């Protein structure tokens, strides 16, 4: 479904600040894959996501999504098939607009001059009820009044309201308090299972990196240095993972949050 072949990206080329952020990366994601992505600070995890989503056009290589070449496709068109969540819960929603207005835009149904229909409102209400956050009674309130966890849950709803082919989760629970993070993660798992979405998830929690999903990739200095799945992954412990990182990269993992074991 997603096929990345040999993409590279250098930021600030030709200057002293030149940084090879993605170094000849290839990756194939199969239908229904749930891949966790780990790596040190600045390893290129988010940059890889940005390349897939189209924040920038890569310098070389090609990206295919569902057999369509999306290498040069602008971000807003890729968004039809790629849903995306960021660490910052404020990024995915328009704070000054109401919950139902946000959902209407994400749903994108009807013509440009159509207004929210009664049926649509009921549909949104049912979806919000499923989140179990009491948001179904607050549909006319501005998004800005919601807590981070609530906003992230609604963002997830918006990203999957028209089921995408691929869901990119960039540490989307990292900025939430533990209870909210658990809740959002549970909603994420439910929706991924229900819609059978392929999913890439950046996490700094080594434990959940091994527990969640069916495959784990590790990045370092713009490259994918480890790609484990199946039995090998099932038998892996966090200590194994750290050891493998040391072997493969020649240095200890310096993700401060990972080492501290912060949720």
């Amino acid at each position: 479904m997603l096929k990345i072949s040999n993409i590279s990206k250098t930021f600030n080329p030709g200057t002293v600040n030149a940084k090879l952020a993605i170094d000849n990366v290839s990756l194939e994601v199969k239908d229904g894959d749930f891949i966790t992505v780990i790596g040190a600070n600045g390893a290129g995890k988010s940059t890889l996501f940005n390349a897939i989503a189209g924040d920038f056009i890569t310098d070389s290589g090609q990206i295919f999504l569902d057999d369509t070449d999306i290498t040069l496709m602008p971000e807003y068109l890729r968004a039809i098939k790629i849903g995306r969540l960021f660490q910052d819960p404020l990024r995915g929603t328009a704070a000054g607009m109401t919950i139902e207005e946000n959902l209407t835009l994400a749903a994108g149904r009807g013509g440009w001059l159509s207004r929210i229909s009664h049926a649509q409102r009921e549909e949104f209400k049912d979806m919000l009820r499923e989140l179990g956050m009491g948001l179904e009674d607050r549909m006319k309130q501005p998004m800005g009044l919601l807590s981070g966890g609530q906003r992230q849950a609604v963002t997830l709803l918006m990203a999957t309201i028209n089921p995408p082919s691929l869901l990119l989760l960039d540490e989307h629970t990292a900025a939430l308090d533990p209870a909210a993070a658990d809740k959002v993660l549970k909603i994420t798992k439910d929706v991924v299972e229900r819609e059978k979405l392929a999913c890439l998830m950046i996490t700094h929690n080594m434990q959940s990196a091994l527990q969640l999903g069916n495959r784990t990739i590790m990045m370092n200095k713009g490259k994918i240095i480890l790609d484990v799945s199946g039995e090998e992954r099932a038998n892996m412990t966090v200590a194994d993972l750290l050891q493998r990182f040391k072997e493969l990269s020649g240095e200890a993992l310096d993700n401060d949050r990972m080492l501290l074991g912060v949720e």
Partner: protein
Amino acid sequence: MNFADMGPLIQTALELGLFSALTVLALYLSYTMLNVCDLSTDGCFTMGATVGAVVAISGHPYLSIFAAMAAGMLSGLVVAFLQTKMGVESLLAGIIVNTAWYSVNIAIMGNSSLLNMNKTDTIFSILKEKLEGTFLASSYKLIIAFVAVALVVTFLSFFLKTRLGLAIRATGNNPDMVKSSSINPAFTTIVGLCIANAFTALSGCLLAQSQKSVNIDIGSGMVTVALASLLIGGAIMSKGGITRRAIGAVIGAFLFRLVYTIALRFNMPAYMLKLVSSVIVIIAISGPYLKKQFPLLQRRMNLRKLNREGR
């Protein structure tokens, strides 16, 4: 000044307020909703006035209104194109277009900086004739201005709740979110600025036709005057829905003109208008900022005092 003077005074303020309210509503769309400060407003306002005048003089009073609005849309398209497709900063795009339109507007008026419509049929002269002898005879300007504003407010309160309208509001709110909804923010910016500038041009066209003349300076400083009115309106109706805030913008335009007209009666020279509107904009924008800074200032004073006493 006695109370007998107040009637015509309020009527003048209401007329001028409603004409400029159309520009204020344009900024309500571009500045408040789309979060673009469109500095081409002055040039676009003048363009609406010149195009409207030229078409009316050539004998098409009704067509002149639509021609002016079409010119405004074109002007908005140019500004939007520069900032979304040509990499020109949004503020700079407005300034550049504004400057360019100075030449274009003189060209539209046929190499002249002044056009006279004393003997021209306009919607104003037509309505005036029709109302002759009725009790509404003296309110023909007010009627046209009111109808135009009512139409624009109705349009906006409908339009901003459609999917396209929502997308335009979201573009001003969070462009990232617009992209993830598979909508191109460049597209919404273009549509928003085209519509807003159509209203700005309509505003210029109606003002020029109501005063039966247009000169090249008719729109100068309009963006500040309109912004001042918009911010006054926002202070009155900061909360509430789209329609309420649009009406607030109209009330702001009226109040601004009312205060200004009264000040004129108290012998404030007419040339002070622009200084006053600039000061209002400064107060309205920097007021909230200074208010936020105030606790820090207070703390600094207290600390200074403490340090002095400590020594």
